[in-house]
């Protein structure tokens, strides 16, 4: 069985300050992990993915995430938030032996203040 927990439902940051979105997972098999972003009235967009290569993964728009097997975590970070980062972020887990069965977290809503 697999599951994913996003530890914060809402995160508020000031523009120019770091962003940290926390994600913990459980999986019976070695997982693949993804972060997606959803802007209002837009489709989900892939930010980055981990598929058992380098544990530090760089994505689009300055985001990166680190896979920590010992902590079963895949936290998303960005050094400096921009107003355009305001959106909902989803952590996704899928075991590598599955047929692409994505398990989504509940999401973290990010608010960026000037």
């Amino acid at each position, binding site marked *: 069985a697999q599951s994913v927990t996003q530890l914060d439902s809402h995160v508020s940051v000031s523009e120019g300050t770091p962003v940290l979105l926390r994600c913990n997972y459980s999986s019976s098999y070695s997982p*693949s992990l*993804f972060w*997606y972003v959803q802007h209002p*009235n*837009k*489709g*989900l*967009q*892939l930010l980055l*993915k981990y*598929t058992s290569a380098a544990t530090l993964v760089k994505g689009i728009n300055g985001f990166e995430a680190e896979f920590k097997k010992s902590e079963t975590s895949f936290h998303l970070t960005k050094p400096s938030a921009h107003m355009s980062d305001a959106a909902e972020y*989803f952590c996704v887990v*899928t075991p*590598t032996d*599955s*047929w*692409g*069965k*994505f398990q*989504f*977290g*509940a*999401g973290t809503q990010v608010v960026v203040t000037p």
Partner: protein
Amino acid sequence: EAGVAQSPRYKIIEKRQSVAFWCNPISGHATLYWYQQILGQGPKLLIQFQNNGVVDDSQLPKDRFSAERLKGVDSTLKIQPAKLEDSAVYLCASSLVEGLAEQYFGPGTRLTVT
């Protein structure tokens, strides 16, 4: 490259009525997914197609929901009869291959059942 297309974007119906959603995946993508996203939650997989065959429909409420993917390209998702709890955004996604490949999402159809 054109993205995943969905229509309609919005639909309002009364309970016990029927409704259908349409999805056109990215050209050449063999795998197609339908998700249900209830407000405040992450998307939940309803059904997965590989070409025109069903891979997983274990979470599809088959007494009222049906889906098909004729000719392995476009897909339709139908609800008949609709219930109030079906109010959600219905997302279509596609991937080039099954398994680890990232999924590309359409903008979704927002369904309101009154």
